[in-house]
């Protein structure tokens, strides 16, 4: 097999954690999801299963609808004027678009990490305490402090910030800010964490740190990550879904997608022929 250097690292990394996948229960089940921005249709009949306690990567060229799909899972598309979602997206069997579902409650269960680190202009402590405070999770100061500490520890940031919890979160480096935002997301104990290109604004070392973190978090959470880097998808995910022009082209175990794609478009994309 003749590989160019761009695809070589993909094959080295695909095996990690892969065995966990086949029998995992389904956490999110999307069926025939269509998303419209005004007149323009951004997603066409997407059906995808996202397994529990694993990382699912959404890949595809820019504008393919992968971020749109991600944002419809926690109904962040509600904040976009003129956006309409049809079809079913089930979280533990419940339709998230059902009238009985409060998006506020849904978003407490489905955390999200954005492309650009967006810490609030507050202290590090207040950033992490934000979610527990608004949801009334902690019953006292001590418990709140415990939650902040454990969240920062799980996000791998505790040792770096323990002595400056009361300094502004915006003063951290880009990679630290992104881990702070992840700590903020897990402080409310979500079941799912959505990540929208979490490393695209970071340098390679910070990226590696975040990828390690994603791999650790996989044991407790169901993670869906949108990424432009196929190497990243191969490194961190157990399941990969390839989107193209608003359609889900192919989804399956990451190893299979990268070594033996069924669709020629997937093949072309992962070998770098377009995208």
């Amino acid at each position: 097999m003749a590989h160019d250097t761009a695809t070589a690292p993909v094959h080295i990394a695909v095996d990690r954690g892969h065995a966990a996948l086949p029998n995992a229960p389904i956490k999110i089940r999307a069926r025939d999801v269509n998303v419209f921005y005004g007149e323009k249709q951004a997603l066409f009949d997407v059906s995808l299963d996202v397994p529990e306690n694993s990382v699912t990567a959404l890949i595809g060229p820019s504008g393919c609808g992968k971020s749109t799909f991600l944002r419809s899972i926690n109904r962040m598309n509600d904040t976009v004027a003129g956006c309409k979602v049809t079809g079913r997206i089930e979280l533990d069997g419940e339709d998230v678009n059902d009238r009985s579902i409060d998006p506020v409650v849904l978003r407490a269960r489905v955390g999200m990490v954005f492309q650009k680190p967006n810490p609030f202009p507050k202290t590090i402590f207040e950033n992490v305490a934000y979610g527990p405070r608004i949801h009334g999770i902690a019953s006292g100061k001590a418990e709140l402090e415990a939650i902040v500490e454990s969240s920062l520890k799980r996000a791998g940031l505790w040792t770096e910030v323990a002595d400056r919890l009361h300094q502004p979160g915006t003063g951290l480096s880009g990679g630290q800010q992104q881990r702070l935002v992840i700590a903020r997301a897990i402080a409310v104990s979500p079941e799912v964490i959505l990540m929208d290109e979490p490393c695209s604004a970071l340098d390679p070392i910070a990226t590696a740190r975040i990828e390690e973190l994603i791999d650790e978090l996989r044991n407790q959470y169901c993670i869906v990550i949108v990424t432009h880097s196929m190497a990243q998808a191969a490194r961190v995910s157990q399941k990969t879904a390839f989107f193209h022009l608003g359609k889900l082209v192919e989804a399956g175990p990451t190893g299979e997608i990268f070594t033996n794609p069924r669709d020629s478009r997937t093949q072309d994309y992962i070998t770098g022929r377009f995208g």
Partner: protein
Amino acid sequence: MLTWIALTALLLFSLATYMAGRRRAVAVTAGKPAQLHSLPGYYGSYAALWAGVPAALLILLFAMFGGRLEAGLLRVDPPAAVQELTAPQQDVFYDDARAIARGGTPSETIYDGALKTALEDKAAKSQQISSLIQYGSIGLGAILALAGVFIAYPRISPQFRARNKVEGWVAGLFVVCSVTAILTTAGIIASLVWESWRFFQAVPVHEFLLGTEWNPQIAMRADQFAGAGAFGAVPLFVGTFLIMLIAMMVAAPIGLFSAIYLSEYASPWTRSVVKPLLEILAGVPTVVYGFFAALTVGPLFRSFFNWIGAQLAGGSFDGLAQYLMQVQNQMALVAGAVMGIMLIPFVSSLSDDIINAVPQSLRDGSLAMGATRSETVKKVVLPAALPGIMAALLLAVSRAVGETMIVTMAAGLQARMTLNPLDTVTTVTVQIVTLLTGDQEFDSPKTLSAFGLGLTLFAVTLMLNIVALRIVRKYREQYD
């Protein structure tokens, strides 16, 4: 008239020079204009600038200062009869000579004998000198224009960097414009400081800033001097502060809340309708707000308080009732409330811009945590926008302190040390207006005190603006 004709001719000459310069630039390259350093038009402009600008400046200078030059020249070699006159009489004599020369009306002074001859002689001379100056300036202008052409024209060659030169002229123009604005401001400050200094020679600074009685004397006679202790500006400061406070109590919450509504809750359609409407409110002239305060709000408030007084009369609050029944149309509350309404669009428009500048990613971050929209506004958006909002409020305060028309019409003129919003009070700006309107002598402390007040006001608003702009700048850096 002649000057205008000359300037028009100069403009036409410059245009012709432009065409000629352009053509020459093309000609010197033998039909390959690409060899030129600059586009041909720049060579034309270069020649036209040399031809037009120095000559035009010269003609304008003479048009502006020619009269003075003539007046000066007229006094050279005075006749013996005139030399015998006193200095003011001489001034009148020369003014009359010039008036006769221009066909105007001279003063009613009667000249006879040698003076009469001298007057006619000087009138004729005045005419001569002024036409000499006029024709001379035009002739000099023509020479300058031609000289300009002779300087610029031979320089046109492919290596000559005409664009850089023309851009230098344009840059010079920009410098002149900006320096004009700065110099004017400096001049205003200098005159304020100078006149205030004269005032503070008559009234000590501490008396002005700390005195509690404001009662400037009217200088009816030259020997009358304003009594000491009448120039204590504290009642004015208190009045200004009271009205500003009332205005901000109206404008800050309403303006801020409407800004929050517009930027966080309103649909794009509502926003596109409401925002321009609010900005129309900002375009209403303050004198119209003044009418509104004096003729509508004032009587309304008075009858309201009179009515309350009538209800309470005879009861246990009889003192209060008696007071309320005597409330007048003019009171701090009316002026403050209407000024607050005037400031609403100012506050809301500025705060709206500031709230909009808070990055959407922060709102997304908060909403994605499961925060409601109101939690997001309260806990993320407003704290992030707070420095900017503070700055907007400070700018509004500075406008309230400097506002004149509404308070002149609705607050009253009596300088009182009171924080009672139902009293008539007076403000710094109102006093400046009343001190300076009408015929005034500009050397009495009464009139000069207006400059003292003006300087104080200027210092306060300047400080408020500097602080506000600093906050805004600091805040902007945070998110760029």
